[in-house]
């Protein structure tokens, strides 16, 4: 889960950074928010996840699909497959003999080796057959004979090693019966297991399950699993799978009920893909990738894929999980730097050179004693690579390997641009974009190279993540009034067009490119808002944009040609260019990076003394920053995720698809802590965008009589306060929380201090004392739930003693 990942980074901070630093008696633990507090949000919400992608946050149930990874195998059908018990359970027919625990045949007489005592059921099923060829004359075995459960099938025995075959039983015969054919040699470790042993999947004639995937052969038919969930079940379900189209364009899914008898009561609500295709709620799933669909049903659901004629490919990792609960706290990574590569599986085979296999060795290379050696003295002519095929051109990889027993010369990679030239012993690492499918490790002839290499590893960079711990995000209720936030084709277009199919900030191929026409004009896209807005109230108009040929952009709150407010930005460096309005007022603007792939979220905030229905507008600008210019008919930039809110800032993204959509208010209350009434510290790190008064954190006795508070007054000044017997002593001067600050209120000996970013802002005295043992209620709000905190919390701690000035300096220095 994402929270666990975030907290693994975070949890080490609770003790403070220095050795011997006092231990906090409470520290915010991202993993324990729902147990330490009552967290509430009765709707979905989105966040920027630890990979810089915008995702919907929900709580999901267990997987309802059986054998969704197509890797389940039945019990072993072959008894004594390793011949440990001699010839027991086998019929060594003809010239088959038992030799050193293997089944061997060395003559040409027609003979059968038959597994006798655990017969194959007389049903048509798929089985996985494995056997090991110990010795061979280079010819193939076969399954054959009138009693063969699989008819006549040629089996590979031309080389030694473990062999795997997927076979379909004929349903009429019951024996695994091996015929020597032209094979002369020995075999061992024979295994036969049914694929999909519980018959979880219903396979059309065009589908098969082999090698842990379901494969469609290009003819038409269905792959089905019913009861995911059963008929009569209601709810929202997340349906996910991975598909690879190898020929044709698509697979299709259907909104089928729990026993696959009807589509009544079942709806495909939405969906997306991370791959190079597209998803439509009509069920067309184009291209390869991981697909996600949200299903609403009142009568169960059945997974049902259709491979139409002419479409070949595979399906894997099928899951359906119920969307159980919306109250999932969000750890949000907006503003984080995503520069830590996430690596996929190992792609190199025999990277430790345990055997002289899998690598192609050109002149001068040899493999022996667990290393690959290049010796200039063995070089004859031609290229000097050792290589194997394991990459896809254009993808990013990390290569690591060791140079050992280095004598002289250099090594480089001929599968990338600008390879380093390595020399000397040690572990070498490089991240690169593959220019070849083969990893060419190239030794220099000119430098008379003599060296060994070992432990070669190549892994694909599948994503980038961050070392930032993120922030616990709490937001108010907000409604996105732009009714088609992602479908730009529903927008109003002036002197421009939109083209679909580009990777968006969510990782799906659902962004659009806004393409200018070739007239001298303003090119304007508007995401439509059909709601009339409140006069004299700030609205934020935000949208995600990414540069292409056009690198400068204007974002508007737009009503009519003479009623709008706007901001201009240069997307190459996030620099502000201009802002303004026509018959409206600009209240603010911002730009922020989203993830690591060039997307920015631009927000313009404005208002008007009349009720206008502000649309979210976007205009590309030319290189001079002009909004009116002569277009070339092809240039443009990318757009996604329009949002129009009645807030003086942009809150987290709320997707819409035909209606306005509301994200519910979040609250985080009812934390319990045993604090020291006589002295202590309430410490917080974070930021807040609000212009309202909010309680950042309040430590109280469960009512307003006695409390210690950190709060934000009218969005302009953060403050610390202590309240004793209904008399509050407040220290002002913390300033705004637009950017992250570390603040602390310290009390003890009738003195209260307020610290901000390593500085004691002010100090005061207070009268009386808080009764012992009453400071037990901790809330991100005023007790009772008023003035809920809105913003991002990176840390919250309660110390049960007043820290020293040195300790507070260390704790609060930003």
């Amino acid at each position: 889960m994402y929270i666990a990942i975030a907290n693994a980074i975070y949890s080490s901070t609770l003790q403070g950074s220095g050795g011997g630093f006092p231990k906090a008696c409470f520290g915010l633990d991202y993993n324990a928010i729902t147990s330490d507090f009552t967290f509430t949000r009765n709707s979905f919400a989105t966040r920027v996840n630890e990979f810089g992608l915008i995702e919907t946050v929900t709580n999901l149930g267990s997987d309802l699909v059986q054998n969704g990874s197509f890797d389940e195998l039945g019990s072993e059908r072959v008894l004594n497959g390793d011949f440990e018990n001699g010839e027991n359970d086998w019929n060594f027919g003809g010239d088959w003999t038992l030799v050193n625990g293997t089944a061997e045949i060395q003559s040409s007489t027609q003979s059968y080796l038959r597994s006798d005592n655990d017969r194959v059921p007389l049903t048509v099923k798929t089985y996985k057959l494995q056997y090991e060829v110990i010795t061979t004359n280079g010819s193939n075995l076969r399954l054959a004979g009138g009693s063969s459960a699989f008819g006549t099938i040629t089996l590979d025995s031309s080389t030694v090693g473990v062999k795997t075959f997927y076979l379909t039983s004929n349903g009429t015969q019951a024996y695994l019966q091996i015929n020597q054919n032209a094979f002369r040699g020995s075999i061992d470790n024979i295994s036969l297991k049914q694929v999909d042993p519980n018959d979880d999947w219903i396979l059309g004639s065009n589908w098969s399950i082999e090698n842990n995937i379901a494969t469609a052969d290009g003819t038409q038919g269905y792959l089905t699993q019913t009861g995911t969930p059963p008929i009569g079940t209601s709810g929202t379900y997340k349906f996910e799978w991975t598909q690879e189209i190898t020929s044709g364009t698509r697979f299709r899914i259907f909104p089928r009920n729990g026993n696959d008898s009807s589509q009544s009561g079942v709806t495909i609500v939405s969906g997306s893909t991370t791959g190079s295709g597209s998803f439509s709620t009509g069920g067309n799933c184009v291209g390869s990738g991981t697909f996600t669909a949200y299903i609403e049903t009142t009568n169960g659901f059945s997974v049902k894929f259709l491979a139409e004629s002419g479409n070949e490919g595979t399906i894997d990792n099928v899951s359906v999980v119920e969307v159980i609960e919306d109250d999932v706290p969000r750890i949000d990574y907006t503003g984080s730097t995503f520069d830590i590569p996430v690596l996929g599986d190992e792609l190199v085979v025999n990277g430790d050179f345990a055997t002289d296999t899998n690598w192609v060795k050109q002149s001068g290379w040899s493999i022996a004693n667990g290393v690959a050696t290049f010796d200039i003295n063995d070089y004859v002519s031609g290229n000097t690579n050792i290589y194997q095929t394991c990459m896809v051109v254009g993808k990013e990889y990390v290569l690591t390997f060791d140079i050992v027993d280095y004598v002289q010369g250099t090594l480089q990679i001929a599968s990338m641009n600008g390879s380093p030239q390595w020399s000397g012993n040690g572990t070498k690492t490089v991240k690169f974009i593959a220019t070849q499918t083969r990893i060419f490790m190239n030794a220099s002839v000119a430098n008379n190279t003599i060296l060994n290499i070992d432990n070669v590893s190549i892994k694909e960079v599948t994503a980038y993540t961050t070392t930032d711990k993120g922030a616990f995000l709490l937001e108010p209720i907000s409604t996105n009034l732009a009714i088609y936030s992602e479908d730009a084709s529903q927008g109003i277009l002036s002197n421009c067009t939109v083209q679909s199919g580009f990777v968006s900030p969510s990782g799906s191929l659902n962004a659009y490119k806004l393409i200018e026409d070739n007239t001298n004009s303003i090119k304007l896209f508007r995401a439509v808002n059909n709601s009339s807005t409140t006069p004299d109230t700030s609205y934020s108009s935000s949208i995600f944009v990414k540069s292409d040929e056009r690198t400068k952009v204007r974002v508007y709150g737009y009503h009519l040609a003479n009623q709008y407010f706007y901001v201009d930005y240069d997307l190459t460096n996030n620099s502000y260019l201009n802002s303004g309005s026509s018959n409206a007022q600009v209240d603010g603007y911002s730009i922020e990076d989203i993830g690591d792939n060039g997307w920015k979220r631009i927000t313009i905030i404005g208002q008007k003394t009349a009720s206008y229905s502000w649309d979210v507008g976007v205009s590309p600008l030319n290189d001079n920053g002009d909004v009116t210019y002569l277009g070339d008919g092809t240039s443009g930039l990318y757009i996604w995720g329009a949002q129009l809110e009645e807030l003086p800032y942009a809150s987290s993204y709320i997707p819409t698809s035909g209606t306005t959509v509301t994200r519910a208010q979040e609250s985080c209350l009812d934390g319990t802590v045993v604090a020291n009434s006589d002295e202590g510290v309430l410490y917080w790190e974070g930021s807040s965008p609000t212009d309202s008064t909010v309680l950042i954190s309040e430590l109280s006795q469960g009512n307003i009589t006695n409390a210690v508070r950190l709060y934000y007054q009218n969005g302009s000044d953060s403050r610390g306060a202590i309240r004793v017997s209904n008399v509050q002593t407040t220290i002002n001067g913390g300033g705004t929380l637009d950017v992250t600050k570390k603040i602390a209120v310290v009390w003890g000996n009738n003195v209260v201090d307020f610290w901000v970013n390593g500085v004691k802002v002010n100090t005061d005295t207070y009268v009386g004392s808080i009764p012992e043992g009453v400071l037990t209620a901790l809330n991100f709000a005023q007790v009772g739930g008023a003035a809920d905190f809105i913003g991002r919390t990176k840390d919250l701690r309660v110390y049960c003693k007043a820290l020293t000035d040195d300790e507070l300096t260390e704790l609060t220095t930003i």
Partner: protein
Amino acid sequence: MKNILIGKYEFNSEEQAKDKILALGTEIEGEYTPDNIDSIVELGFLIITPGTYDPDGHEITPPVYSDKYSVDVLWYDKIKNPYGWATYQINVQGEGAHSFFGVPYQENKMP
């Protein structure tokens, strides 16, 4: 799962809607807090017919608004409409003009 229900309402005027909403709540420390309500969304006077505009953004025909003031409510732990609300409740196809993120109206409709 918590007991969440969605109600959609059309009031005769904005004033009537705001009075109904205020009557639901209590006051804590000067902060108005509605009872048993997670979210109230005042949709206002919905556009029945969108306006039309020329390519340069000039209005050709103005939008036509409903004369009813629309409000959507996400009720929390409530099994029926509060007194005086049922009269103004409406039923719509699908999600209507507004939805709560991830909370389907048809599955969570106030009876």
